[in-house]
């Protein structure tokens, strides 16, 4: 990006906070540490399967911290970094605005509240997990969650099977066979499949 933006990508640039945002162009707002924390806490706690949609709404539409393109770029980057996407996003986003401390604060906002919540839930489960009623309900929920994942797979697969593509579907099937059916260790399987998959994508480009 070569435009003279106040640089989400350059946190070290002098950003005089005392000055009102009266500069020439409508510049992105730079969130404070407290705003970073609450923003990611809200995204996190409203994120039932829709963390991406929520973060876009907040970052781009409501608070205007990122343009739509900046959001897409940041998210695309985080989607193929190892580790949970939204966790990576909080780090990349926080650091771009407020350096290492911003990254830590955004991450704490994202993970703090749900971690506390899930530990409380874990404690309740440790006491009542054997109740038949609870077990039956959880079995129902797990079954439904598996169904939701299947629907996601079907939707993801649609573009993959277009144009009579063969290699992509084969790679997906091989991954499923190795992990879902054979239960082979993930690191070994990925170290074999990922290079092949990226190489074929590269050659077809």
């Amino acid at each position, binding site marked *: 990006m070569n435009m003279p933006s106040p640089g989400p990508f350059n946190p070290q640039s002098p950003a005089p906070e005392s000055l009102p945002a009266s500069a020439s162009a409508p510049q992105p707002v730079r969130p404070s540490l407290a705003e970073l924390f609450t923003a990611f806490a809200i995204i996190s*706690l409203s994120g039932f399967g829709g963390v991406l949609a929520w973060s876009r709404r907040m970052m781009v539409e409501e608070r205007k911290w990122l343009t739509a393109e900046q959001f897409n770029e940041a998210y695309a980057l985080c989607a193929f970094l190892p580790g*949970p996407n939204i966790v990576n996003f909080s780090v*990349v986003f926080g650091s771009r605005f407020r350096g290492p401390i911003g990254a830590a604060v955004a991450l704490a906002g994202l993970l703090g509240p749900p*971690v506390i919540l899930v530990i409380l839930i874990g404690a309740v489960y440790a006491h009542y997990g054997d109740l038949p009623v609870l077990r039956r309900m*959880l079995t129902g929920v797990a*079954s439904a*969650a598996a169904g939701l994942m*299947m629907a996601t797979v079907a939707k993801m697969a649609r573009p993959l099977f277009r144009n009579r593509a063969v290699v992509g579907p084969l790679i997906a099937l091989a991954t499923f066979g190795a992990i*879902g059916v054979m239960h082979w260790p993930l690191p070994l399987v990925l170290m074999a499949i990922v290079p092949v998959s990226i190489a074929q994508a590269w050659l077809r480009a």
Partner: protein
Amino acid sequence: MKDSGGTLLTLAGFFATVSLFAIGGANSAVPEMHRYAVDMQHWLSDRQFSDTFALAQLTPGPNVIIVTLIGYHVAGIVGALVTTLAMCGPTCVFAFFVGRAAERFKGSAWHGALSRGLIPVTLGLTASSAAVIATTSGYNWAALAITLGTAFTAYFVRVHPLWAFAVAALLGLSGLV
């Protein structure tokens, strides 16, 4: 627990490794977590694993909190914090530095090849997670019917996960499952 320090180290080592291979999100690593925590370490039963997955789905927040719950089950609050840090720490440091360097590589050819190459793998992993959860949450017909019914509905209609979970929990409550 006779060797809690050892258990914590095992937890940390395993989840730090898994995090590096969790492409497409924490749910992609669910089969690996099941393989290790249930089949190899016997930290949880099949049943407890599927319960844990369900509870993590019911808790608002990123999917990664399933590791917090596994850690809590194995070694209490300390275990919960250790697994969460192990799962997020190394990849966060990586994301921090890559995020700062990424600007220079934007739009380069390998960027596209990398993401296009990872899509079919992520697809296979998500399908695996669905299969592992469907098979650990009981082999009975009612559970299978809920899974397929949800899959079918969610494919054609936009379903909020909470609605799907509420209906499925009620079906479970009614004694069907």
